């Protein structure tokens, strides 16, 4: 659904911007892993595509608020970073498929790189409410790019931090720390969000330990609602066939083992409908 939200608060969290927006309908329907798309640039903008952001938090205050955490990357996020309390924002959401939750209490390791950590907090709350054990591994390039360390420490059994420059926690990447966290906590499942490369590596670790990994991916999106076909990634289906599936509508959450990370950015030759993959190609 589409909602004209009102910005309640803006703040800086480490290297990131956080926006809390009053968006009643969206907050009610939200499940961990959902994202929203935001129109940027105002009414007479030349920016025609919306920007996708994971929902970091929802609260029932003020009739329902959602919080987004983002990093300034280009013109759209720069505009968003300039929003102030009482400005209005045009949001569509909640979008995508949320994280599946384990039926029985399980030991879950939540892995977040950079702002990818944001989406893991509502997930952690949902897992804790089901009696799961939650452990965090959070990382970033430097200390100020590790998002949510304080909150993770408050709610999780253990929190492991990594930075590539060694300015906080262990020097290295989240995947360097992950194997020992999985071993120590006897994890049953891993949830991850971050750049594709990180998700690929996390999935590889999960497969080594033979435990399922759920990843939330990011791909360039024009519509976010499943109509434009711009956001596809190669994913292996239940029948073993690879399809180019929409990250916005079938995702953004996928089973890590199903995503062909090495082939993201290509059409694998054996994908359904690939040129030479059994079907005829016309262009």
């Amino acid at each position, binding site marked *: 659904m589409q909602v004209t939200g009102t910005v309640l608060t803006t703040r800086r969290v480490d290297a990131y911007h956080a926006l809390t927006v009053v968006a009643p309908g969206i907050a009610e329907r939200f499940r961990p892993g959902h994202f929203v798309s935001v129109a940027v640039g105002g009414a007479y903008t030349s920016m025609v595509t919306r920007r996708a952001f994971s929902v970091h938090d929802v609260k029932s205050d003020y009739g329902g608020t959602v919080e987004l955490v983002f990093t300034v990357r280009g013109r759209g996020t720069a505009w968003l970073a300039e929003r102030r309390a009482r400005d209005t924002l045009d949001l569509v959401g909640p979008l995508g498929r949320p994280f599946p939750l384990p039926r029985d209490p399980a030991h879950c390791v939540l892995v977040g790189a950079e702002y990818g950590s944001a989406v893991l907090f509502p997930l952690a709350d949902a897992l804790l409410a089901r009696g799961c054990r939650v452990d965090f591994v959070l990382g970033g390039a430097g200390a100020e790019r590790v998002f949510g360390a304080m909150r993770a420490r408050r709610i999780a059994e253990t929190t492991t931090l990594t930075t590539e420059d060694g300015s906080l926690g262990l020097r290295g990447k989240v995947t360097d720390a992950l194997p020992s966290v999985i071993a120590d906590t006897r994890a049953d499942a891993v949830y991850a969000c971050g750049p594709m490369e990180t998700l690929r590596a996390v999935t590889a670790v999960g497969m080594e330990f033979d435990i399922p990994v759920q990843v939330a991916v990011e791909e360039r*999106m024009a519509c976010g609602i499943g109509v434009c076909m711009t956001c596809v990634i190669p994913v292996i289906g239940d029948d073993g066939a690879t399809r180019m599936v929409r990250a916005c509508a079938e995702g953004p959450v996928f089973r890590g083992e199903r995503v062909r990370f090495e082939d993201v950015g290509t059409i694998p030759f054996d994908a359904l409908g690939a040129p030479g993959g059994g079907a005829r190609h016309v262009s």
Partner: protein
Amino acid sequence: MSVDMRTFLAHVELANPITTAAGCASSGRELAQFFDLHRLGALTTRSITMAPRAGRPTPRMAETPSGMLNAVGLQGPGIEAFLERELPWLAQRGIKTIVSIGGGTVAEYSELARRLADAPGVTALEVNLSCPNIEDRGRIFAREGSAAAEVIASVRSIMRYDVPVVAKLAPDVADIVSVARACVDAGADALSMINNPLGMAIDTEALRPSLAAVTGGLSGPAVLPLAVRCVWQVHAALPGVPLIGIGGVMSGRDAFQLVLAGACVVGVGTALFHDPYACLRIERELEDLLRARGFQRLADAVGLAHRPPGSAPRHLLVDTEESAP
């Protein structure tokens, strides 16, 4: 006073002139989560191909000034799945459906038409001519009157007479009027324009083209003037041919421009990515603009901008008072 928004695509009546642009609304189901599809004049499907197609590699999208580039490559499940799952879904709900088809050879277009000829629920057939002709060194059908005409003649001979065949034209040609004329001579009941002109963007961080496919189709507000020009030229040359105006329509005012240039149906594409409700809003805004100018019927505004300078609009010759816009 309400404005009569009904319009005719050839002999088929639509309740209002707004349709989705091919490839921008998939086959309708996703949009149905937002609003009742019956409120569209018609839904245009993505271009259906014979075989399933995985499309082009990602990134497939790049935002550009007042527009975007796409290189999707007609990804879709193919005609079989369309006939099994997608068309029946639309037909059962009685949604007016313009089915778009795309192919690489005349034979492929003909086969698609044959499969669709007996399928219930096809309101009109739109032939996407912006596909490369694999039998002619990958030249785009729409860029050559003769190639386009061959496709249209074949499809027209196969489709039932009561289903209009619409030729969708590309703007980046030397002479769009001659391509339009060739299509009409070949039997096209209506013309649709414009498809995406080809564009390109370069990522100044990666120092490489922004799209994996290097070039892509430009859409959005950036192409509106191109669409208005094409509709204008073709309406001037072929005033009796119904036109679907498409390209950069974001508001009722944009749609109104295309109507005044000669379009009796208006397609909305990229605007849907920005606002899933865009079609409904644009229809309402168009109606408001017509009402504010004293029009009682949409039909009276079609092509009106072609009247000679100084002459009063026909609908205003009767004694109505124009309210302030």
